[in-house]
């Protein structure tokens, strides 16, 4: 009974269970919480698989940043707490489940054909991780994968700018504001600043 065996059999069921629970939750916040649990268990699986760096990154990036952002948006939007799970598209749910089963079957078949269910990882992994996993990963990242790395950084920058542009509320043009200030009588009804304007484009 090795430690990784125990950890796998503890984490994998929790992970799948929390994923299913996420799927069935009507409340978006609860769904997010289950997803966080799932992310944590997956992180632990990374640890088992010899990827402590990814373990940390998974927690920092996914659990720490992305999911907080999700919670944030859910709360900010004040989306109705409960979502009715009644399906309106005919046959969608049946088709989805059938297709899902198909995917599982396919992949399991592929794993059996391609990898085999008793294949153990070879012992040579320690050499690849030489000098510590973060260090080895860093060497790989900044040498062989340097260009993708830099490109990714640009992608992140673009995403940040894009998010700011998308989520920003349009300010009213200064000119019209000035005109309004000069006109003593306000002809149109004063619009609520928080109300979404009709001319705002949808992203």
């Amino acid at each position, binding site marked *: 009974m090795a430690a990784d065996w125990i950890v796998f059999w503890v984490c994998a069921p929790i992970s799948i269970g929390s994923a299913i629970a996420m799927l069935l939750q009507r409340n978006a916040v609860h769904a997010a919480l289950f997803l966080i649990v799932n992310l944590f268990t997956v992180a632990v699986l990374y640890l088992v698989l010899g990827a402590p760096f990814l373990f940390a990154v998974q927690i920092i990036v996914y659990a720490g940043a992305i999911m907080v952002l999700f919670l944030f948006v859910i709360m900010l939007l004040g989306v109705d707490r409960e979502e009715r799970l009644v399906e309106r598209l005919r046959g*969608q749910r049946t088709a989805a489940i059938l297709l899902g089963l198909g995917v599982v079957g*396919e992949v399991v078949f592929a794993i059996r054909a391609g990898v085999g269910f008793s294949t153990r990882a070879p012992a040579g992994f320690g050499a690849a991780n030489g000098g510590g996993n973060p260090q080895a990963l860093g060497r790989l990242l900044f040498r062989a994968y340097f260009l993708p790395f830099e490109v990714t950084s640009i992608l992140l920058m673009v995403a940040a700018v894009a998010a700011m542009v998308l989520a920003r509320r349009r300010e009213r043009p200064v000119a019209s504001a000035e005109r309004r200030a000069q006109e003593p009588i306000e002809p149109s009804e004063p619009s609520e600043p928080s109300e979404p304007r009709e001319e705002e484009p949808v992203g």
Partner: protein
Amino acid sequence: MLRQVWLVPALPLAGFVVCLFAGTRLGRYAGWLASALVVASFGIGLGVFSDLVSLPDASRHVVRHLYEWIAVGGFRVAVDLRVDPLSMTMALVVTGVGAIIHVYSIGYMDGDPRYGRFFAYMNLFVFFMLTLVLAENFLLLYVGWEGVGLCSYLLIGFWHERPAAASAAKKAFVVTRIGDTFMLVGIALIFLRLGSLDFTAVLRIPCGPGQHCPPAITTDTGVSTVIALLLFAGAIGKSAQVPLHVWLPDAMEGPTPVSALIHAATMVTAGVYLVARTHVLFEVSGVALTVVLVVGLVTALYAATVALAQDDFKRVLAWSTISQLGFMFTALGLRAYWAAIFLLVTHAFYKALLFLSAGSVMHALDGETDLKKMGGLRRTMPITAVVCSIGALALAGIPPFAGFFSKDDVLAVANQSGHALAWLIALVAAFFSALYMARLVFLAFFGEERTERYAHEAPPVMTVPLGLLAVGAAFGGFLGANETRGLLQTFLAPVLGKVREPTQGLSGPALALISVGVAALAIAVGWLVYGSGRIDWVALRVRLSSLHRFLARGWYVDDAYAAVLVSPAKAGSAFLAYVVDARLVDGLVNASGQLVRWLASVGRRVQTGFVRNYALAILLGALVLLVYVGLRI
């Protein structure tokens, strides 16, 4: 200085760039800058020339490699400049006359809203012309060839607000393009048959028995005839010979300095240069030389007759240019290449002088060009009158002016090489030449004043160039005064071959006497009709109106072209545009559009707008793909 030969074309190019981008900012200085650059180019050309002269006769051709331009498989074209007597003669004419005309333009174009652009184009033209004459291979020559065509187009249409100028520019461009296309085919043929485009490889000079001649040419005169005729077609177009001469008279719509530089002194002589440069090919062919001779003679006579009936100052000069070019081609056809180049040089002087005089007159008369409305200008414009008369005398062939020596050479060669008929035709053409020049001068500068406008002499910036050119027109002939051992003849001998001693025909002095007599007779007739006032030339014109109209309209060649070529082409185009394109092509396009619309109206029902439907489709596709891949394995 030989290594710096690249500066000769580079300086005008720099001027073009500067004037194009900073022309408006430079203001009047644009003209001075452009002129200074051309003058500098001329100076460097002189340096190169002196270096070339210091070399021994046999090694007087230097190829300066600039860079590898095209290298595709076995096809190699380099930007090489060729320095030899012929190219240097041409380069010095281009930069020398060009510089004078540039300076003249400073005064002539003063006040034009597109002043900077004008000089940009002029500099560009000089650059392309130098590229043409200095090129070491056919392709680079072709680049210059098309480049000067482009500049000609731009400058003829410089005042493109005037419909006449715009259409003249278009006409010049299209008509010369006909010849250029033949020429390009010829160049391609040269490469196909001879495997190279370099002059040194293609034109081994001299190519006699026992020497290394291009194999295809020595064995196959048919090919060389075809090549020579194709190249000559290009020359016909560029040098406005019959039957592609129709663009040059219309090209007078451009500013007068342009006419002087491009349509008298340099660009139109490119055809002469081309034939002289490739005369080896023509000689191997033989037939091609005859064609050149015939075309030259026909053009010389035909254009001289037409020039007699023109009322427009510049058009007289334009037809005269065509005629003079005909004389040059006659010389080429008679294998007297040096004579052609000699005539080219002197013609550059006196024709540029005549055009600039015309410009001076127009400058004084607010753009008036109609000879009927001039007269007696010698009193108000003495300098112009004197220099114009010098140019006219030079053209007419009165000694000691330049034209006498050069034209006399052509006539002498015709006589002494046994082409008596050619000699007679040329003599008649020379008679008409002297006659129309006499008519021009007497109508414009003598007699009574027929204009109310206040005429005045041009500023020094214009008269000084006129004076310079007048000196050239007056004394340029001494360059080749000695028929067999003149300066020019000996200088050009390494390229164009030695002047052959006459073996038959009349003796030199006798021929000179005959041609001077003919010219004097023509001038006397001209004085009698137009200068003496004893004959009412207006009445004469009315009496001979049908003949006059026939001549004035250039023997109706243009009208014939319009009827035979242009109208059917227009009708055909209209048919294609309004019937074939509108009905058939558009119909096909519209039909396919309709089909797509119909298909789309059926297929778009798939687009439900529900994201989750799309996601379902994606997953389904992925699944199918997986199954496919799984089955493949």
